[in-house]
């Protein structure tokens, strides 16, 4: 019986391939995991190692603009030189520490504002009739169809002295002279909140739309007024969305370069700008790399804290 089946079966390249892969210990599951692993190794881990290596080097004039870590002596010795001076330099110059603290502040405040704006929007979309939800979500994502850079430039048109907002306010007579909004921290907050708001709304929406409406009814039935129901039922059950959304806003906001560069003033200090200046203006790759590595540490710590908080929330279910 098996013989006839084999002779009648068509050529199956997939079966051949999978047999070969199985022979070297690769199953379908292994392949699925292998692809992203390879991607992360090539495009994340290797560059990270390179950056880490440069940060331990010294600036040099030439190509590449830093000294190699390994030097080969004429007598066949290999010398490994690690310079920690770049990191010490970061600690010694208050500019860098201030930039980090300022970045954390800007990212934190922006996250809180995005949460305060995004939560009602996500709540409304999740509670809207089902047929409108996709349309409303679409509107949230719609800005992504335009280049990020263009959208930030558009804000210049809104915020500048003779921009749309000032002209409107003067036309209504609310103000006599234009308010300075562009090149202030305010403009940076506007830009960051505007840009990252969808990243806050989407995870919030996902957790709010899953919220069982009968839980809200049960809460009301047990005597809770709407605000109490929100605080005791809706808010705790949407905590995973709050945490995920906050991470998605906070983390990129820390290292944000374009928005403070375009909308911020000369005194808007953010680590992304410092990094850019080190890299492109000072051409000091080692210090720029040290800034990047330090920033990674600054970002990773809050990620780990939030991740732990999220695990705790999931655990409590």
């Amino acid at each position, binding site marked *: 019986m098996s013989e006839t089946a084999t002779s009648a079966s068509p050529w199956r390249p997939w079966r051949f391939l999978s047999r070969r892969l199985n022979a070297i210990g690769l199953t379908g599951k292994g392949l699925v995991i292998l692809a992203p692993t390879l991607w992360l190794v090539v495009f994340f881990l290797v560059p990270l190692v390179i950056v880490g290596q440069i940060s331990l080097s010294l600036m040099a004039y030439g190509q590449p603009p830093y000294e190699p870590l390994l030097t080969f002596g004429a007598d066949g010795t290999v010398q490994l030189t690690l310079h920690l001076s770049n990191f010490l330099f970061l600690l010694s110059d208050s500019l860098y520490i201030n930039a980090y603290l300022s970045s954390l502040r800007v990212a934190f405040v922006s996250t809180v504002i995005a949460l305060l704006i995004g939560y009602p929007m996500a709540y409304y979309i999740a509670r809207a009739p089902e047929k409108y939800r996709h349309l409303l979500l679409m509107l949230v994502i719609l800005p992504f169809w335009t280049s990020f850079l263009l959208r930030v430039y558009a804000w210049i048109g809104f915020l500048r002295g003779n921009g749309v907002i000032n002209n409107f306010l003067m036309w209504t007579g609310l103000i006599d002279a234009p308010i300075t909004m562009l090149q202030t921290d305010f403009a940076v907050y506007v830009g960051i909140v505007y840009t990252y708001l969808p990243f806050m709304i989407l995870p919030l929406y996902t957790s709010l739309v899953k919220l*069982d409406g*009968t*839980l809200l*009814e*049960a*809460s*009301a*039935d*047990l*005597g*809770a*007024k709407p605000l*109490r129901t929100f605080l*005791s*039922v809706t808010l*705790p*059950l949407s905590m995973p969305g709050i945490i995920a959304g906050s991470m998605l806003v906070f983390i990129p906001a820390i290292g944000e370069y374009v928005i403070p560069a375009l909308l911020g003033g000369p005194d808007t200090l953010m680590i992304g700008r410092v990094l850019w200046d080190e890299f492109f203006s000072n051409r000091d790759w080692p210090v720029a790399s040290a800034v990047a590595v330090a920033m990674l540490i600054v970002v990773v710590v809050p990620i780990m804290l939030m991740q732990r908080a999220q695990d705790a929330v999931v655990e*409590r*279910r």
Partner: protein
Amino acid sequence: MKKPQTAADTRPWRDPGAKPFVRIRNVTKKFGDVFAVDDVSLDIFKGELFCLLGGSGSGKSTLLRMLAGFEDPTSGSIEIDGQDMASVPPYRRPVNMMFQSYALFPHMSVEANIAYGLKRDHLPKAEIADRVAELLRLVKLEPYGKRKPHQLSGGQRQRVALARALAKRPKLLLLDEPLGALDKKLREETQFELVKIQETLGVTFIVVTHDQEEAMSLATRIGVMREGAIAMIGEPTDVYEFPNSRFVAGFIGSVNMFEGVVVEDEPDHVRIRSTEAGCDIYVNHGVDCAPDQVLWFAIRPEKISLSRERPEGDANIAKGMVEDIAYLGDMSVYQVMLDSGKRIRVTKANALRGDPDAISWDEEVYAHWGGNAGSVLTS
């Protein structure tokens, strides 16, 4: 499982002067153009365990949700304990509900779930703790107070939901398919517990269910709903033995229905000629009908007897052949093909073990019944 029905005072609905606890007056609820509930009037008395019974889409859940305050009636009024409920929000009603899905708060422990309503009343902490402990004892969940709902079995969750709904000592408890999610055995046990708790606490229960067995065994009275309207209200025995329409007769239990024409209409008896039955049907009491009127005779399977010999008499005897027998252990269901071509269902209790003389497949039999065994229905 029913409440003892000996003393007259346990059945206030029989007393025309009794004051109802819940008064539903001409309530209609429209969703768009659809009448979910259509002009329902209903009185429910204190201490009752009233079952709203109906298929899906019969409006029973909508009626319950209007009592809880989650839906507003399009027209009509609802009074609970003498107070008009119009524009009273759910959180101010003296009513608690046990949800079909239980709707337990997943992020709270069993204790916190039960205490939720009490906290809203701002009771002192010690009193809340006492009340929670008491309720856990009532539903036999003392060791599970610290668990989360997802760590409980279906039956345990059901009891938490019940305890939470009872925590505020509501005057009226609404239960939406309370036993629907439980398996059969658990459901039967829980039915007893539910009735016991209801009797102990003296709370008025309104239970929505689609399960007629559940309604029969739980209820003091049943309201059968159909297409948003009440088809019949009555005690379980009334609804089963004296249905008022073909719908009610067919919805509750199984029934054999014969169409026929009135040929004799006397004050003390009625004779119906039915070609469907293949014989005359004699009813030994008067019926509100006219000669030559077409009507229906409904008879339950257990009210029909089968015999090999033709019994005496000129009516209520239909000849046929046994087509099929379903042996259920406690009883057997016979499917008999009458000579008229109509199939009927007859059940017989298996009183003897391995009865060698039992009627078997393909035997010719006479199906017969007494003059008082069935109901004459005009609609």
